Structures are given as C-alpha cells and as structure tokens.
C-alpha cells in the first residue's frame, strides 16, 4: 500500500493513541510456525481506539497491508504531524466508529514496526535475526493476532477488516477461526496471488538481494541496502497505481525542467515521484521485513491450505457474514479474484454482499476517501450489529 496519510478534513479524530506491546512465549512456549520452526518470544505491537464494552462484544480487528503498521488512527502526540494510516475510516462518527466500536490493530509478525521480525534480536545470538528469521505465513500472523485477542479477553470479534495483504488476513481469520468472527470485510484482496503478483514481488525482492549491502540479510551493523529497498518500493508503487491514475497524476510532464536532460537524471515527474517514494520508504522500513512479508503474501493460498485445492471446500469452514469489495482499476488484485471468492461463499450458502467500486486510482483505492466505500462498510456493520443485538444506528 502507498501512503496517503492525511489529517481528516472534518477534523474528527480519535485523538491521542499509544502503541502497546504484547509478548508471549518468553519462557519457551512460543509460536509453532507453518514452516516447522518455533518462534519465541513473540511480541506484537498493537494499538486500540474506542472503548471495549462490558461484554466485550464490540471489538473490530483491523489488519494492515504489506507495509502498514499498528498505527491505524489518531496521533502519538499533540504535535504529531501525521495521524494513523486509516484515519479517514477509523474515528468518532466514521465507518469504523470509535464511539461504538473498540478498534484493534497490530503490526504483523515479520514486520518492523514493533512486532517480532528479522530486525528483532535472536535470543540465541542476541543479534538481529536477519535472514535467520523463520519464513512466516499469513496463517502465522493470524494465529499471533488470535493470541492478542485472547489476551484482551475477547471471545468473538464483531468484525475483521482489512485491504490487500490485510484482506488476506481477514479471509484467513474467517476460515481458521469461524467461531471467533461475526463478520469479515476483505477489501481489494485475493485468496491467492496470481503469477503476475508473485512476479512483481520477486523483482522487488531481487532488487534488495542484488544490493551488495544486503549482505545475505546481515547488514544491521554494516549499513542497510537502501538502494535495493528503494527500488523494491518503486516497483510496488507501480502496481498500486493504474494507467489512468498515472496519466492523470504525471502524464509525460517533466520535473523541474523544460527540456529533456539527455542524461539519466529524473526527467519525468513519474521518475521523480518514484524516487521520492523509494527514498522516503527506506527511512521507515526494513529490507529484510520486506522480503519476509512479500513471501508471506506469495505463499497465501486459501484453497490449497483449507480446501485441498477447492475454494468452495475452503469456505465451507466459514460461517460469518461477508462484505467483499473490489475496485475497477485494481490490476494487482483484479475484480475477478474477488468474484471468485464471492462465488465460493455463495455456493456455501454464506451471507455475502459484494460491490465493485468504480475508481480510477488502482489498488490503492481502498486507502483513499470514497463515499461509496464508507457507506458500504457503515451499512454492513449496522446490520452485523443488529444481528448481534448491539443495535445499529439506524434500522433497515
């Protein structure tokens, strides 16, 4: 996902938030991972907004996308220049209404924003794991999130919501823990990566690994593979936009010049934009984390994992209500992939709503202000609340 973090135009915000840490497995009993290895201890960085009600029935888990973090909304301090990444969706009176719901968002394992990942110290060596960190899966991430939800004393989540790789976690939750989820909102996502999506991820990983400073993943004392990571981010950015949004945003306009340079400077605005995004990303993200998280996304395959190759069989485990949303110009996870999951849900008699939203901005559309998206989520959650006896803010 890209960064569109901006202040809410209406001025509504959940206000100050704090990042918490939840650690388990300190005394050895950690997390057995899909790859066969065990991770211990495991720390999850998480944030919450709103108030958990007495019977703990109003909790919504938000799952972040590839390079997101637990900072979903609000500000860390009074003079914090930027709010959380989904400020426009999470807050008082917003679709994920913090006056009604208790919002939880945790950083995935393998990440680099406070949860255990390749940058964390390996207890065996006391040095960062680097490439010795075990390969994690979307399933592993979700099992860790379940431990956090247990820790918070919540039996059943009102909803799990997320876009892109966050949407994969949403789907995983709904199939792995059907008894723990009332409703699921997978946005701009897929039940498995297409060859094209894996291809882009592989090019991005190669950009990092081809950078000599990557040094087999052991660079924390010698200097980070900044150039490789920046190129990886540039590749990602291309897949998050669309032909139309790029034409609209940049077309062939030149950057700070009136003529072509006839050298390898950034002539075009689009080049300058990608370089800027790449360089900005390097400041906040760890290259090894990028490798691990893209791998987790590539490995995700709901039908193989739960249905022996059949998506219909995989969703036969599910029981929650679904709201599936795709965007017309998303070519990373095109609408046909959402329709495939909707089809499998219908064949299982599941309660599913689906809408393909007309939007020119490509995959990133789920992060941008969109009245349609807000209305869909709001209306769907109202119905889910009515079904759980929580009471919507308006009846049908």
């Amino acid at each position, binding site marked *: 996902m890209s960064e569109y973090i901006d202040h809410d135009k209406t001025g509504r915000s959940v206000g100050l938030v704090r990042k918490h840490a939840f650690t388990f497995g300190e005394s050895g009993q950690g997390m057995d991972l899909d790859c066969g290895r065990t991770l211990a201890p495991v720390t999850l960085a998480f944030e919450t907004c709103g108030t958990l009600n007495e019977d703990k029935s109003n909790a919504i888990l938000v799952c972040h996308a590839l390079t997101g973090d637990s900072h979903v909304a609000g500000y860390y301090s009074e003079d914090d220049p930027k709010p959380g990444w989904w400020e426009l969706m999470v807050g008082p009176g917003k679709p994920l209404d913090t006056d009604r719901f208790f919002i939880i968002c945790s950083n995935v394992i393998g990440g680099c924003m406070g949860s255990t990942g390749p940058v964390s110290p390996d207890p065996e060596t006391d040095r960062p794991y680097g490439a010795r960190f075990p390969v994690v899966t979307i399933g592993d991430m979700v099992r860790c999130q379940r431990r956090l939800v247990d820790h918070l004393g919540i039996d059943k989540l009102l909803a799990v919501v997320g876009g892109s790789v966050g949407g994969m976690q949403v789907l995983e939750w709904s199939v792995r823990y059907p008894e723990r989820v009332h409703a699921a909102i997978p946005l701009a996502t897929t039940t498995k990566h297409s060859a094209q999506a894996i291809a882009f991820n592989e090019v991005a990983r190669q950009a990092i690994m081809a950078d000599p400073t990557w040094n087999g993943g052991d660079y924390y004392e010698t200097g980070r593979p900044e150039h490789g990571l920046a190129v990886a981010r540039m590749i990602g950015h291309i897949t998050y936009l669309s032909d139309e949004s790029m034409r609209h945003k940049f077309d062939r306009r030149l950057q700070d010049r009136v003529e072509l340079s006839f050298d390898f400077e950034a002539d075009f605005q689009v080049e300058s934009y990608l370089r800027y995004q790449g360089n900005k990303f390097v400041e906040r993200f760890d290259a090894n984390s990028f490798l691990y998280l893209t791998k987790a996304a590539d490995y995700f395959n709901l039908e193989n994992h739960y249905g022996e190759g059949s998506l219909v069989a995989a969703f036969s485990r599910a029981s929650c*209500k679904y*709201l599936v949303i795709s965007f017309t110009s998303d070519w990373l996870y095109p609408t046909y992939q959402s*329709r495939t999951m*909707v*089809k499998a849900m*219908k*064949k299982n*008699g599941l*309660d*599913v*709503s*689906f*809408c*393909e*939203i*007309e939007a020119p901005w490509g995959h990133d559309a789920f992060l941008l202000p969109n009245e*349609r998206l807000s*209305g*869909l989520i*709001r*209306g*769907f959650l*109202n*119905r889910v609340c*009515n079904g759980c006896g929580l009471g*919507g803010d*308006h*009846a*049908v």
Partner: protein
Amino acid sequence: MRFDLHVIASWIEPGSKVLDLGCRTGSLLAHLTKEKSIRGTGVEIDEGHAGEAIAKGLSVIHGDIYEEIEDYPDNTFDYVILSQALMQVTDPETLIREMLRVGRLCVVSFPNFTHYRNRFQMFFTGRAPVSKELPYQWYDTPNIRVIPIIDFRRFCAGLHVPIVREVAISTHHHDEKGKVITFLPNLFATFGIFMLGQPS
C-alpha cells in the same frame, strides 16, 4: 414503495428466504426484512443501486443476474423475484428455469405491453408506444422485449411451468397506489404479476 412491489410483498410468507433479481436500491427487500422478517439477498448490476442497497444494510451482490444465479445451490430460496426486469432479459426461458432451480416459487412482474393506451397510440399515431410504464423511445430503450399478459401465460404453458397465482394491476410506474384489474386484464392492466411453481 411501488404498488406492484406491495402486491408482491403480500404474497411472501413471513420468515422465508428470498432472492430478488434486479433489486435496484433494495426497497422491496428492506420492506420484507422489516415487515416479514425474511432473509433476503439481492442481485443488482448497477453499482450505485447495489451500493445504496448494501448501505441500507441489505445483503446484495453487485453483478449480472445470469452469472450470479448460477452459483446458488438448488432450492436455496423459498421465493425468487424478478420485478420489472423481464423486458431486459435476453434469455427468459433459461432465467426462469434457473429461478425455479434455486427457488421453490418464483415471482415475475412486467409492464403489460398491450394496455389499451399503447394500442391506441399505435393505432392512431402509427408510432411505437411510449408510456409512463415504458417511457423510452425506440433508440434509447433498455427493454428488448414487449410482453402482453396473455403471451406470458402461453410462454409459461409452453415451459410446463404452472402459474400458481396471478394478478393484473393498473398503476403508474412509480406510484404507490393502484388497483387490481379483473376485467380484460390484457387490455386494462398496466402490469402483470405472476407466481410460478415447479415445472411438471
């Protein structure tokens, strides 16, 4: 809510499972959910309408009715409704068979093309009729079929699909009021509403 939808709603048993094909913004489903506690699902091809219906808190799939109906297992619903959409359906036979596969009963409503005003218009002006029920010109109509009530009966007989219930009404397109027509419905009714049962 439109008068024809009120008539359809009166036919639906409380607590049943309903599929509304071409549900638009979901006013029938919302009404049935509230008044009859049905479990309803809609299919709607227009993004704006589907979005509005979901935002109302209804379960709706944004998609094409032909493609979407295929995914439902046999006998998923008690009723499958196709209200004022038959005129735009390319293959009515396949669709009605599919409706009766996924549902026990199906309800179909359409504007009666041979209403006397349409006949007068054609007879006296010699032009394609334009009415409140069928308000389009030949060059901009989404309707590819014209359906007289008696022809629809013959069509059902040909499919060996029994007509379980039938009512002809006179109302304008968006009117909430109307009346039931029993005398020469093919001439005096603006809409026909049929409930169809399983083929013999």
